[in-house]
């Protein structure tokens, strides 16, 4: 599903974010990528999302070769991903329901399913009572859950959550991780980046990837 060989990323200002990493993630895995702030976790997510192109090495995501992929290919790839961004990227002035529906509007999901799926997803993340609340009126934890609902309604092959526990208290953080852990199934791979290693349920993870200073220092997990 995702393979990286000697993957390097250097930004235009000369910063080396990833210094040649190798890994493989298979279909249906739950992968935790840990590491301190600035270790290269978000850079790896950006590469997987096609926001950045590898400086050298190979990265294949869902059959897309990221180094040479054209904009249309990147768009196609992103439509197969359910992202939960670090900054959440919800649209202010729109309700939870509208934000969740927005993620489906240009996919091949029939129009009459948008509201049903969005409501179901918001129920799943325990926000069924706030479907008409404006995004800016929700707490950070609630916004986090709307972002997860938006990701899962897209029926993605890959869920990418970048620091979903950031800015949350322990109870809310554990709740969010439990929701994300439950999304993994035979068809859906879940990748979660976090620096809060103490919150990870190691028994649920199939791979634990620890990145530090642009290199993978530990690659383990219950199924790897």
């Amino acid at each position, binding site marked *: 599903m995702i393979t990286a060989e000697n993957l390097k990323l250097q930004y235009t200002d000369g910063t080396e974010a990833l210094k040649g990493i190798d890994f493989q993630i298979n279909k249906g895995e739950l992968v935790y990528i840990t590491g301190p702030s600035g270790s290269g976790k978000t850079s790896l997510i950006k590469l997987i*999302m096609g*926001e950045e192109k590898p400086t050298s090495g190979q990265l294949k995501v869902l059959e897309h070769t990221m180094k040479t992929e054209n904009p249309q290919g990147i*768009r*196609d*790839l*992103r*439509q*197969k*991903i359910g*992202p939960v*961004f670090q900054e959440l*990227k919800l*649209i202010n*002035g729109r309700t939870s329901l509208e934000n969740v529906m*927005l*993620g489906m*509007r*240009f*996919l091949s999901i029939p*129009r009459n399913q948008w509201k049903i799926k969005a409501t179901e997803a918001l129920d799943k993340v325990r926000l069924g009572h706030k479907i008409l609340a404006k995004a800016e009126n929700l707490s950070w934890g609630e916004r986090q859950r709307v972002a997860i609902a938006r990701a899962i309604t*897209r029926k993605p092959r890959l869920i990418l959550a970048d620091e979903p526990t950031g800015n949350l208290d322990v109870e809310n953080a554990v709740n969010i991780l439990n929701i994300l852990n439950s999304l993994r199934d035979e068809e859906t791979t879940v990748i979660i980046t976090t620096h809060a290693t103490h919150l990870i349920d190691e028994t649920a993870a199939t791979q634990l990837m620890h990145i530090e200073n642009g290199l993978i220092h530990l690659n383990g997990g219950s199924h790897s």
Partner: protein
Amino acid sequence: MKTIIVNLGYFIKESFITLKTNRLSNFLSFVSITLAFFLLALVITTWIVSLQIIDVLEQEAEFNVFFHEAVDEPSRILMAESISDISGVVSTRVVGEAEALQRMEEILGEEAQVLAYFDENPFDAFIEVKVDLAQSEAIIAALQEIPDVRSIRDNQQVLDQIRNITRIQQFLGTLFIVAAGAATLVVISHIIRQGIYHNREQINTLRLLGAPESFIALPFLLVGLVMTVGGGLLASIMTGAAINMGYAQMSGPIPYLPLPTQVVLIRNTTFIIVFLSLLLGIGGSVMGLKTSKES
């Protein structure tokens, strides 16, 4: 295409949200666009009116051929028949002294009382010759060859002057259309760029979710269209009112001016302005989207 149709309600809602974001700036831009279209509509109206006047004058172009007093009634008819044979002459008709006087009385209206001071009818008989203006020079040359022709009165100079004025007006009109069009394009593209700037986070989110560029661009395109077509329609209403006022002013002093009917003039001007606004709206929006993407 299917994505666009099923999301039409969403696009309309998004475009109105964008319009509301910068309410004052967008309102002022809307006023500028409306005024530009209003001025444009006035230029187009004048253009249509002058073309109509030229057309009517050309269709009714005629020469008056005066002959010596000695020419009697049968000879006048023969002369008219021979003039009919000249290439470019559409028709001829002998107008007697009495009819010439009657025509002048009709033109003068209440002022016709002045004619009563003449002891006898001061008007001469003549032959009215309707002509094809394109051949006017050849016709005049042929008429001058006819014996007993005393003088020829043509309105060639008047028509030439009107044509010259129309040519200048067309040049200035074209210049104005280009200037107003360019101004509208710039205003609209600026509004679109502003809208994109204010919504850059949302656009980035949509891109990361894999939204096609057309899906992202459509609400902005609609903003451009709403502004220009709205401005165009308002300008058309203002032009309609101005035309009605203008006609009311002109109907008194120059009742015989061959003006197009108000309904036709307002309909044609509205059609041109709405079509132009549609075109400029799409053009301005595309320009705004393109320059935003490049920068």
